[in-house]
């Protein structure tokens, strides 16, 4: 399932920053320590699988063998690059699709907002495996042979990922738009003679920068690891690659995982860094 919290997330105005001051009265010393023990267990639960992966990745003799094998496997880089490219295409696609739409709804057609929002929430109801089921049956048919067209599968993959990204990207953009005075900016720009494209690119987009960037990095992280849609569309993405070596090799899956974690964390770290100013958004999407 994709991104539940986008529904429930409080608008920034209604929410304290997560690392802000706690609202509860300081509990007694005993419960203080109890909490810390809980947190310790929590930390252990999260860290141990990662530690195991690292340890497995250096189990062979010599310790770097798995990493060497991973780096010298041409499919590792080709699948990584492919997924990265698809990720970029998805980001561009989502932005091209949603920014003008959100802007238009905001400015000119506010009555359509509920309908547009409803559509962006549909991906929650249609899990990835069901989505790809429908896509393959529709576009693999004789009537709409998109699947067999050159790059048809890639186009479908990007489209599917755009669908997955809709919920949180729309919410990001929407919240961003609400925090700037769209109407005044537009009117000012128009009175200075700017046309729509100019307004969108030079006025609106820069103001949404933070929201867009964090959404973009999240999208990238998810596309890089996604498995279900890529495997059923028979695309040479990183997810299916990792799955395959996980089934066929002993230690290379660990080294490849570590590398993919590194990439995910880099993306998330960037989100955290960029999102410092705009707190209070949590998102989860399903690439599970």
């Amino acid at each position: 399932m994709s991104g539940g919290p986008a529904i429930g997330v409080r608008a920034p105005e209604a929410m304290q920053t997560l690392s802000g001051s706690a609202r509860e009265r300081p509990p007694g010393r005993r419960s203080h320590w109890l909490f810390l023990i809980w947190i310790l267990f929590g930390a252990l639960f999260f860290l141990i699988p990662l530690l195991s992966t690292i340890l497995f990745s250096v189990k062979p003799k010599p310790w770097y063998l798995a990493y060497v094998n991973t780096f010298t496997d041409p499919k590792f880089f080709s699948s990584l690059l492919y997924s990265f490219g698809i990720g970029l295409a998805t980001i561009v696609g989502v932005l091209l699709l949603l920014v003008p739409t959100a802007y238009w709804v905001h400015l000119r057609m506010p009555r359509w907002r509920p309908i547009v929002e409803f559509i962006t929430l549909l991906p929650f109801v249609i899990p990835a495996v069901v989505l790809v089921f429908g896509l393959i049956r529709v576009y693999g048919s004789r009537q709409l042979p998109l699947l067999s067209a050159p790059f048809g599968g890639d186009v479908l993959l990007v489209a599917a990922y755009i669908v997955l990204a809709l919920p949180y990207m729309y919410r990001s953009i929407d919240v961003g738009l609400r925090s700037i005075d769209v109407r005044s900016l537009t009117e000012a720009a128009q009175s200075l003679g700017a046309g729509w494209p100019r307004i969108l690119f030079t006025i609106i987009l820069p103001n949404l920068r933070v929201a867009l960037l964090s959404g973009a990095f999240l999208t990238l992280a998810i596309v890089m690891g996604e498995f279900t849609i890529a495997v059923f569309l028979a695309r040479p993405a990183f997810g299916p690659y990792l799955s395959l070596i996980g089934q066929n090799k002993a230690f290379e899956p660990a080294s490849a995982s570590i590398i993919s974690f590194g990439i995910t964390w880099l993306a998330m770290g960037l989100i955290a860094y960029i999102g410092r100013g705009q707190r209070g958004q949590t998102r989860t999407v399903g690439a599970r």
Partner: protein
Amino acid sequence: MDALVAAAQAEGNLTTIALPDDWCNYREMIDTFKTKYGIEVNELDPNAGSGDEVEAIKANKDNPGPQAPDVIDVGLAFGPTAKDEGLIQPYKVETWDSIPADAKDADGYWWGDYYGVLSFEVNTAVVSNVPQDWSDLLKPEYKNQVALAGDPRSSNQAIQTVFAAALANGGSLDNAQPGLDFFKQLNDAGNFVPTIAKPGTIAQGETPITIRWTYNALSNRDGTAASGGPEIAVVVPTSGRFAGVYVQGISAYAPHPNAAKLWQEFMYSDEGQNIWLKGYCHPIRYEDLVATDAVPADQLAKLPDVAGAVFPTLAQLDAAKELITTQWDSVVGVDVVE
């Protein structure tokens, strides 16, 4: 032949299915084919079983996209059924005559490619006392350790494993029922792991004992050693030695029929057959190759000793396949699911 090469190159693509890298050295086969003819190979689902391959043709009858396989490599019993369902088209490779008659369809719809014998593949880091025969598998020391290398309702390797167990359990080539009983016993004893064994799961310890064709077990042993992994032991069971043949077929709905035919010609040339041999498989033209001295001596030496192995006939295979695929759920009662 030149016309075929030109036509295949015009198509530019070949879609294969269910060809793992280390199964009969398919990695080298595919890479050599790619470089030799400049044709791209789209490899679908290396983990598919024979039944899945046939299903993939059916599911993509109207879809000439990259999900539709051009060629299949399935267990002997799956050839005639695919022919009956109209899913494959006839073709006779140039070296057709050197393929033994009992390993090919007279009309050219399917033809044998290689054979091997079922053996135990054991991860010695988990299992210190390597089982030597089928009856050993039932011992309590192997709790939660024995797995099939496929789903016995659709994977040829798994179906033949159950069939082979019959030989060691009081059955015969005409009676596969004891094989099902054996696995029921195995499951009741808690020794059976209902997960499909793969090289990764074997090396990671998930399925430390599995039954696979000698060629798979041996190349996996080599591959795991190359990864710095645990030592794999390959044991051909003392009783119940069971040999199996696989066959090639070209999909009747193949999006790239000429590339498919060229692929077949390549595999059945001396060069192709030797590539299979390097992967510890006995290629179907083995007798012919040996007679014409086309096999390097060191390769020959590496082939496993499969003395005493029995080859079931097509009729026996059909009966056993029917029995095992339909009865597995009710007799053994475990889905290789959950």
